């Protein structure tokens, strides 16, 4: 399974709008952690789904990951993966001052033979996601971050960069191209209709 975990905070909606603009269905499951107030969860997903060909859902408990789908972490729960497959939403204390935390989600990934990972850290204050991309790198995955020129707040990408684990930095547009290049696009015909 291919798993992309994207973390964003302050300035994230704008960066994501540009990253998901015309994003085709990539051959990977996307977990998106955007720090935001809970009441925005639904409208945020809606705004995002209007831009991309991928299915955008607010993640629910026990949901299984699916290629071509964006699973958005709901506010006030930490999102962790069980066996890299099943979504587990955990009520818990804030980590890095936030819940859901990008680090918590990324650190739940485990080494599994055929699984490929990419961690992406976008704009935001402080350092959430830095430990996460280090972990992903250690698992043999890749790490991308947003560049300073386009980030509203460069703290999060910069902290990730300082771990030395980052493979690529660029604008949201170039990050989108990088994701397509890394995982390829799902054929519409092979798309299975799910419940």
């Amino acid at each position: 399974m291919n798993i992309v975990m994207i973390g964003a905070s302050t300035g994230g909606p704008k960066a994501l709008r540009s990253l998901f603009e015309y994003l085709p269905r990539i051959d990977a499951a996307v977990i998106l952690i955007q720090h935001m107030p809970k009441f925005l969860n639904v409208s945020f997903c809606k705004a995002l789904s209007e831009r991309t060909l991928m299915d955008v859902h607010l993640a629910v408990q026990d949901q299984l990951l699916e290629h071509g789908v964006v699973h958005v972490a709901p506010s006030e729960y930490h999102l962790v993966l069980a066996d890299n497959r099943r979504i587990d939403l955990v009520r818990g204390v804030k980590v890095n001052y936030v819940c859901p935390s990008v680090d918590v989600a990324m650190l739940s990934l485990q080494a599994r033979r055929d699984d490929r990972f990419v961690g992406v850290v976008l704009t935001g204050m402080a350092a959430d996601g830095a430990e996460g991309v280090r972990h992903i790198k250690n698992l043999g995955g890749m790490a991308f971050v947003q560049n300073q020129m386009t980030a509203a707040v460069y703290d999060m990408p910069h902290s990730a960069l300082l771990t030395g684990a980052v493979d690529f930095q660029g604008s949201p547009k170039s990050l989108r191209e990088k994701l397509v290049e890394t995982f390829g696009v799902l054929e519409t015909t092979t798309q299975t209709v799910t419940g």
Partner: protein
Amino acid sequence: MLASDDLTTRQAVKVILRKYDQPVTLVSSAEEILHASQEESTPQTIILDARLAGDDPIALLNHIFQTYESHKTHVFLLTHHQNSANPPRQIPRGAASVTFGGLEDLENRFQSRSLPNRFGNTTDLRDVRMGSEEEFMAVFLHAPIPIYLIDTEGHVLRANRAKNPYIDADGTSSRDLGYVLGCRHGEGQGRCGTVPQCKRCPLHMVIRETIREDRCFHRKEISLDVPVETDPSEKIYALASTTPLWIDRKKMVLLFLEDISELRRSQELLAEFNRNLESLVARRTEEVRALLEQKKEFIRQLGHDLRTPLTPLVALLPKFRASLVDPKEREMLELIINNTEYINQLVAKTLDLMFLENQAGVPERQTIDLRVEINNILADFAPVLQDRNILAVNAVETPVRLCVDVLQFKEMLLNLLSNAVKFSPEHGQVTISAATNEREVTVSVSDTGMGMTPEQFSRVFDEFYKVDPSRHDRSSIGLGLSICKRIVENHEGRIWIESPGLGKGTTVYIALPARRPAEVGGREEQ
């Protein structure tokens, strides 16, 4: 003339006198002193054992001065303990002729009068045969470290005289250790080792250990809490070296006691000095930190106060574009907008430079691959390059590792690249390359632009310098290279410019120190 009834005293004085080649007449009672005057010539000095003077030394001294003329004869009243001796309360007439003191004072007296002998202040061994008992005694007595032979009861059987006024001249003693060391704990109530304080006495502990465990060459640093006369508040620090000895089938302890009080006191002084120094350094560091913090706050405030009034200008001026129809007015508006944008850039760059200058010391470094960094930046630059039809070439073909502050380094590349692009003609070429040797990594950014004269090479790094002397060029701020220079200096590197001449292009070189070997490990495998 030496007057003493005590054999050991006489021997001790004889040793001293022989050392200074003083002939001596020996008498053993007070009467003999007075008698001798009839037979002998007047002695220069009469050394009078205080014990011989009895209870009334004054009377005896008066007698002596009746017999001998006080201006010809000097009386040295030898007391056995210089400090406890009761000096005669009434000094007779001719007091200048009487002195009193212990053996050491006596020796000092001769020493100061006589010329130094071959061995300096040591015993003159001219008459001593090697291997003789005398030789051994001389060596023992004059060893420069206090040596004591103690029995298991703590009695000092023998001691040498180094720094030790309580020991008889021949090294024998009938005193206990405490007395010899000047410890006053046991005074008046018994011997050394018998008063409660003695239980904690580290010297006693060392001696007991040596006896009990038969430990040879035992060495231990101790601090003696003995109220010595010189300064009761001061502790004596000593290095006590002991070894057990069997003499006449009796177990004894040989004790070497080195006074290291001076050393310890200077160590303490040094330590205190260091503590003071540390706190001074900490205070200064804190002051510097506070100043930097203040400056940072100032820059923050200044930035805020410059950007805030720019906000309406930048946001509202373009609104007039739509409403103005008169070409003249439109021209004026464009001029205003351009200048506003120029001020905006100037503010941003100036604050940048101030911020960089305020960065005290070491930038936040990490290892980067130059080739990848250049590719990233060229990607960011692509729209500008396309716009001007300029070809940008990343000539770095292999990974080049650099340990830099990424943000600063990228800002520097950005400035160099935008300069190169700015001064390049349409269809020009900008090349970034790198060369590595053991010491440095040299990065160069070349353009095919207007070039420079050698006079301009050094000045371009000055703040607000512009190649165009009339300064009409509003497309650049004149701070880009100053910023680059500051960044390079933050990285302990060098920056310079070369150009074959006007119209022949310019190359900016940056040489940064290659990573130190210590920094190579760890990430290299990744």
